[in-house]
Structure formats: structure tokens, C-alpha cells
């Protein structure tokens, strides 16, 4: 039983990261109807920036905040420069654009910081949390930061004017434009926020997976799986999906024989495909009805 509780808690901790990634993916999907295949690489790049800041002697939390700000601006810049011109382009072109961005970021991170694996500090320490052996303080910290972030986002979207405008621009762009919302900038804002959320995910998972240019590959696939499970049209679903996927991953790794660390990606693949086949809209997504 203790093993079970332990695995569930560990699953919730990694699930928190998947929830962040899924949320970032869903935010961009909501805004422009495309999946950002470069989301993981953007998060990785942000994490490298924070690492560099710390190397220059800036304390962790200051580096954290500066990275958030830089990622926010960077996300907006990417949208304005690269993806705004593609807004009306077909799906294929957009997929190609995201793939190109993926390649550019991955390879330039390698060029700047090279491909060796780096240690990344955790501000929470790794001693047992509250004296219990179940989870470490870092895992507790991951859950804590994610929950704070989610609450913040919830209040932002529910109770601020900009949050309302962003929701309006995402769900009915034409009407939103008619009532005077600058939908184009709402999309850019969505990108900025998604990039910042991604960078939080990156900085929290880096102490666990270590810092290197390919560190987010697996995390992104799980983020996608979480987003698909919760429904690509529902930010709330993405978060729930993230936690579910994290727990599922850990339990499958513990209890299904033959599934070790090496099979984690195929599990994500199986999950994505089975959700898409059985319930394409996900658990909480809107079912999209198309007019013929």
C-alpha cells in the first residue's frame, strides 16, 4: 500500500509538469488552432536562460522571475515575427513552421550551451517532505508551484478584463473583433503566456531530468498526451489530464510487468492514440461540429 501511495504522489508531482506543458499547448491551440510542436524546445531554451543567469551569480528566484519575463517577451516576439504571417496559411505550412522552430531552437541551444548534461539546482532541496518518506520537498514544491500557477491563471481568466478578452478572442474571434477587442494581440499575448508557463515547467523538471537540449522531448509527448486526454479545447481538462497522465505513467511503470523506464514513450503513444480513437474530443473538450 505504501508503494501505491508513494507512486501516486510521485505521479502527481510529475503530472504537475505535464499539466503545465499541456496548458501551454492548449493555450496556443485555443488561440490559433495549431499544435505547437516546438513548445518543449521553447521551454528548454528558457530553462537554459535561467541556468545561465544563475551561472552569472543571480539568485534562484530572481533568475526565475527574469526568465519568466524574458520568455513572455520571447513568445510574443516569435508570434509576431514568425507565425503572424502564417495565420491564413494551410495546416501543412503551419506544421512545417513549428518543425522549423523546433530545429532552430534545439540546435541553437546546443550551439550556445553545448550538448553535455548539466546539473540544475532546486530551490526546495531534496530532503523528505514534512518528515514523511513519501515525497521529497522538490516534488512537493513542483506540486505547490503548479497549483499556485493554476489558481493565478484561473483568476486571471475569470476576473480580469484582459482574461475575458482573451477568452472571447479564442472562442469567437469575429464577434470579439466587432466589440473592439484586438484579437491579433490577444493571440500574441496567449503565446507569451504559454511560453512563460512552459518555462516554469522546464525549470521545475530540469532538476529531475537534468539540463540538456533534448530534455523536453519526452515531457512534450506527455504534455500532448495530457492535452489530448483532457481535451484540446479545455484548459481545465489539460490540467486534469496532466495529473492523470502523470499518475498513470507511474502506476503503469510499477505494476505492469515489462514496462520499465524504457517503455515510457510507447505508453504515451498508446495513450494518445487510444484517446483519439475512443473519445477524440477528450474528457472535457467541446465536441466540434462542422458544417458541411
Amino acid at each position: 500500500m505504501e508503494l501505491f501511495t508513494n507512486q501516486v504522489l510521485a505521479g502527481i508531482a510529475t503530472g504537475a509538469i505535464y499539466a503545465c506543458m499541456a496548458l501551454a499547448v492548449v493555450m496556443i491551440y485555443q488561440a490559433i488552432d495549431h499544435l505547437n510542436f516546438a513548445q518543449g524546445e521553447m521551454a528548454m531554451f528558457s530553462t537554459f536562460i535561467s541556468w545561465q543567469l544563475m551561472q552569472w551569480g543571480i539568485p534562484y528566484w530572481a533568475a526565475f522571475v527574469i526568465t519568466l519575463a524574458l520568455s513572455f517577451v520571447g513568445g510574443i516576439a516569435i508570434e509576431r515575427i514568425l507565425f503572424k504571417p502564417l495565420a491564413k496559411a494551410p495546416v501543412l505550412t503551419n506544421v512545417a513552421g513549428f518543425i522549423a522552430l523546433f530545429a532552430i531552437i534545439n540546435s541553437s541551444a546546443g550551439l550556445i550551451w553545448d550538448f553535455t548534461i548539466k546539473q540544475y539546482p532546486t530551490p526546495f532541496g531534496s530532503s523528505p517532505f514534512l518528515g514523511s518518506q513519501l515525497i521529497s520537498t522538490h516534488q512537493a514544491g513542483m506540486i505547490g508551484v503548479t497549483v499556485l500557477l493554476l489558481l493565478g491563471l484561473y483568476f486571471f481568466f475569470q476576473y480580469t478584463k484582459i482574461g475575458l478578452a482573451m477568452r472571447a478572442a479564442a472562442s469567437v474571434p469575429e464577434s470579439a473583433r466587432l466589440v473592439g477587442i484586438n484579437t491579433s494581440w490577444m493571440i500574441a499575448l496567449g503565446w507569451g503566456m504559454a511560453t512563460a508557463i512552459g518555462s516554469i515547467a522546464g525549470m521545475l523538471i530540469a532538476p529531475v531530468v537534468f539540463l540538456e537540449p533534448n530534455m523536453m522531448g519526452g515531457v512534450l509527448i506527455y504534455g500532448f498526451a495530457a492535452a489530448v486526454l483532457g481535451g484540446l479545447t479545455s484548459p481545465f481538462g489539460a490540467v486534469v489530464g496532466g495529473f492523470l497522465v502523470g499518475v498513470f505513467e507511474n502506476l503503469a511503470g510499477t505494476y505492469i510487468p515489462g514496462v520499465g523506464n524504457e517503455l515510457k514513450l510507447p505508453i504515451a503513444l498508446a495513450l494518445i492514440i487510444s484517446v483519439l480513437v475512443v473519445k477524440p474530443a477528450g474528457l472535457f473538450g467541446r465536441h466540434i461540429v462542422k458544417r458541411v
Partner: protein
Amino acid sequence: MSAAEEVVAEGHQAVEAVPKRAMTLGTGTSLVVLAALIIMPVFVKNFIIFQMTMLLIYGLAVLALNILTGGSGQFSLGQSAFYAVGAYTTAVLMEHFNVNYALTLPVAGVVCFAFGFLFGQPALRLSGVYLALATFALATAMPQLLKLNFLEHWTGGVQGLVVTKPDAPFGLPMSQDMWLYYFSLAVVLAIYIFSVNLLRSRSGRAFMAIRDNEIAASAMGVDVALYKTLAFGVSAAITGIAGSLGAIAVQFVAPDSYTITLAISLFLGMVVGGVGWLPGSIVGAAFIIFVPNMAEGISKGLSGAVFGVLLFLVIYLVPHGARQIAILGQQLVGRLRKN
């Protein structure tokens, strides 16, 4: 509305705009290219022959993706998975069962056809980004699947398998590289002709009808589910054959040779060559083989960045890839002839 659709629409206009004589220009160019491909190995070193072989092999893999995306309008970021299955089929058959290399190609084709057809079943319910997502996950998961413990006896696990390079048959006075080049050239030509005819056939028209408007196609009696999975199967089979040729040429298969990077390269090759334009496949393949080589020459790790930047340039400047340039060239020649 897919890119392929636009390409074809534009292509038709361009074809109509060009006088009939100019169309023979295309045939002429293909013959010149073919002649060059046949004669070239006589004059160059073995290493360049090897690179040309890889060019043909990647060309074949890009062609396969082109049939899927350009033909039936479905995406795949997971071609590396089919390529890997083909490569492993050949390697396992050659090394564990001593099967002749030439005989492993059809087997790889059949195995990959089945794999692609089965993967096409769930993919049926997906379109656009969802399909891209599912195939992306497939490509990411493939290296781990190949490393599975219980398959290790056959696949060699992380170490992979070494494949012996075949000698030229009938005592032909040829180096192994040169023989393999001609062998690949023959296979590629045969598949190319098959593909051109496939797209012109009833099945090919069904693919395109689905690509252009799925609902209209099904209303006209096209079995959408069958043809969509069929396109997946054919594409996977051709990719698998490319994979087995690749395994023989490189003489080595290992899980980490078939990562998402390969799938991205093939996708890139298709976009550069022009979606839905089969001759563009070889142009795209040349791009994905030679550009990284040059970039790595300048700095290690640069190839991804160069790839990305060039891909953006292609998207913005020549969204229809090499096809657009070919059409421009054709019109230019047509105009010169008129004057």
C-alpha cells in the same frame, strides 16, 4: 484546404498556360537526369557513389510521404518509424536467416504495408493536426520500441545489427558501392514508375478526391476508409523498402538512427521538393542530405538551425517548393521559345 490542394490547383493553371511543346521539356529533363544518374558512378569516387545511393534512398522515402500527403492529403511526422521497420526487417532476415538481400526488400515492403495499414486504422478518425500529433508520437516512441528487452535477441538492442554489404553478382567488374547504387537505382525507378501510375489510376484519383473533399468523395461512392488506410499502407511499404535499402547501404541498423530527426528531415524534404510533385522528391532528398553536411562543416550542431531557417525561407518565399521553381523555369523557357 491543404497545401497540396493549392499546389495542384496552381499546377493545373500553369500546365494549361504553358504550350504543349514545353511539356516535353519536362520529359526531356527527366531523361537527361536519368542518363546522368546512370553514367555518373563511372567517373566518381566510391564515397560519392555512396552519397548518391543515399540520395536515391531518401528520395524514395520522400516520394512515399509525397504519395501520402500530396496524394491523399494525410499528414505524417512518423515516416521514420516505417523506415526503421523496413531497415530492421532486412537486417534481421539477412543476419539471422541468411536471406538474400534482394529478397528482403519485398518482405520489408509487405511487413511495412501491414504496419502502415494497421496504423492507418486509428489514424482514420484523425485529421490535420491530430494525425500529425499521433504520427509524431509514433516516431518518438519507435527507438524505445526497438530497444525492447524481449526483442533484443533479434534486434541486438541498443547495439543494433551489422549488415554485410553484398558483392556484385555474376562476377560483374564493379565495386560493392557501385553495384548497390545501380541496384538502388533500378528499385527506385521501378517504384517511381509504379507511383506515377498509381496516382493516375482509379485509386490515385480516389486519393485525390479524398484530399480535395472527403464528403464529396464519399458521396460519389469512394470508400474513404479503405482508400485512406490504403494510402497509409502504400506509403509505409515504399518507406520500408527505402529503409531496407538504407540498411544495406549503411551496413548498420541501430534504434538511434531512426529518431524523430529522420522523420523531420523527410517531412522537410517533401516541403522543399513541393508537396504532391513526385520529381520534387529527389530535389528534397538532395536538400536533406547535402545541406546538413555543409552546415556541419561550418560548425557542429549547426545543421538543425540551418534546416530550420531554410525551411522558414521556403515557407515564406516559395511555398510550393521546387515545383514552383520548375514551373517558373518552364514558363521562362516557353516565353523564350515564343520570341
